[in-house]
């Protein structure tokens, strides 16, 4: 990593680099520093905005009710009968889609990773890897179109129109799963490729076949990388917006039935913003309250994934 470090000389007495007392040099470096610091400002701004607008929401409604009530109808007047602010239906919707997505993406992604890393000849790899990159680059609104116009009708034919709503969690979840396959596959493949060949040779030497080597030696050796790949993919599934907005519906429902219409946290944000709720209204602030929850969930997953990689990484060589 520290390839370009000699800018800071090893000893302050024998500096071979020109002294940076030129003001031009120094001002350029400070401009570059400002550019780098923009990322920190971005994080602070996100946190500030979410808190600033979200906290107003909790100034008017109880946070306990937010986390425990079982219906989500934060529209109109806070005093009306219909007004309910339990976020659980949105969380359960998000979780339902995420679980379905992981059921698709984990087996398929891991199988792809194993195939690409252990079996595929260089030429096949040269085709499959860019193809997965292209898949990862397809805009999610296109995948949403795919879920709504192709997957949902197919599901309604396979099962029955009564059990599968036009908008449903299953279709959205399946397509979100396809969306995160490249994430699982490419990060897991990196982890598998990083396992030193000595372990493979030792396993073959003990008489193990290739499949046994993959399942009993390589997967355990690459486990930390694989787990963090899955966690990162989970974060992407939770944060995915357009597929669920298009295909999962706009009805917050506390259910585990994958055939029913639901709404996710991200789906609510898009729907409520589209309704152009005036700034300062309770509905407007509720968007940011949901945003806080979404941000915390994905942020926590990111940190966990990074921790796992750092703490459990097998340091080969």
């Amino acid at each position, binding site marked *: 990593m520290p390839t*370009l470090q*000699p800018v*800071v000389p090893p000893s302050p007495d024998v500096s*071979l680099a*020109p002294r*940076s007392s030129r003001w031009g040099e120094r001002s*350029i*470096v400070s*401009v*570059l*520093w400002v*550019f*780098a610091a*923009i*990322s*920190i400002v*971005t994080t602070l701004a996100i946190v*500030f*905005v*979410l808190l600033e607008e979200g906290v107003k929401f909790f100034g008017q409604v109880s946070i306990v009710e937010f986390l425990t009530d079982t219906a989500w109808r934060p529209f109109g007047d806070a005093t009306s009968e219909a007004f309910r602010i339990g976020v659980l239906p949105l969380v359960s919707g998000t979780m339902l889609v995420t679980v379905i997505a992981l059921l698709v993406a984990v*087996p*398929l992604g891991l*199988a*792809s990773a194993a*195939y690409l890393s252990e079996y595929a000849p260089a030429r096949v790899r040269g085709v499959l890897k*860019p*193809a997965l990159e292209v*898949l990862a*680059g*397809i*805009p*999610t*609104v*296109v995948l*949403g*179109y*795919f879920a709504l116009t*192709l997957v949902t009708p197919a599901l309604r034919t396979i099962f029955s129109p009564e059990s599968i709503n036009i908008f449903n969690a299953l279709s959205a979840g399946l397509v979100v799963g396809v969306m995160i396959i*490249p994430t699982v*596959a490419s990060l897991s493949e990196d982890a598998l490729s990083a396992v030193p060949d000595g372990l493979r040779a030792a396993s073959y030497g003990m008489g193990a*076949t*290739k*499949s046994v080597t993959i399942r009993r030696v390589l997967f355990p050796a690459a486990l930390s990388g694989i787990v963090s790949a899955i966690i*990162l993919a989970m*974060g*992407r599934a939770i*944060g*995915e*917006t*357009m597929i669920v907005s298009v295909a999962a519906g706009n009805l917050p429902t506390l259910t585990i039935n994958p055939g029913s219409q639901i709404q996710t946290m991200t789906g609510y*944000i*898009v729907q409520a*913003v589209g309704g152009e709720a005036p700034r300062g209204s309770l509905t407007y602030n509720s968007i940011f309250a949901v*945003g806080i929850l979404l*941000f915390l969930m*994905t*942020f926590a997953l*990111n*940190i966990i994934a*990074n921790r796992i990689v750092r703490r459990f990484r097998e340091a080969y060589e």
Partner: protein
Amino acid sequence: MSALSTPAGVARGVALDLSAPRARLRRERAFQGVLMTATLVALLVMVTLLFDVLSDGAARLNQDFFTSYTSRRAADTGIRTGLTGSLSLMVLVAGMSFPIGVGAGIYLEVFAPDNRFTRFMQVNIANLAGVPSVVYGLLAAAMFVYIMGLGRTLISGALALTLLILPVIIVASREAIRAVPPSIFNGALALGATPWQATRKQVLPVAMPGILTGTILALSRAVGETAPILVAGAVFSRRADNEPWNILEAFGALPVQVYDFIKRPQAEFQTEVAAAGIIVMLTVLLTMNSGAIILRNRYARRR
């Protein structure tokens, strides 16, 4: 019992046949077959999608589709607002994210001291890359639209997308710079160049193809993003048809337009028109991506 049976106490059939048992071979082949099939599933889905979109939308593509505004009638509607909006967004986002992202990459790779603040910056950039794009929309909706008073305008959307892809460009720039042999940098220093001169005149030209590849890929992501600009206030009506330099006017974008088409109740909009819009959008993205891949390959061959 055959005549050749071994005496009791000695294991039978000891290693005369050293080739793997057939059942085991079959299991091995089956395992490989399963893995390969699983890999192909994702690609099959992609091919199905492309085929579906082409068969639904190709008939709808004509000149009027590119030059018409959105309309309530599916037969008259077009994607003019989306096209001009996406082009303006692309120019603005590229103009802002490229210098900032590359500058941050240079700072972190060449000038940053190895201290806690630098490490904090790096962890922060990694975490930002995992923040859902819709959250950037919320940031724009509150910070740019209201607090800074820019309104639901082109510049608000462009800022949201810029912040969204900055981490990607920073990481790509860092990797490209790190791949430059340190001897080039050190050689320039030895000849009396300042660190910035060595970076600008020697390191950057070598790293530029890698940086450009990463930037183009990041930009193509920005062009396809819907959620952040939708939340930041992108619209699809004629109102959003403006000159690209009017950054304080309402704006539209291709993906937002496609989303609008999909959401309309009429079947013609949902399938034909939306599919036609998707074809246009995917063509733009494919052009950008192949440009990036060509750049990368040419660069890889030269090294």
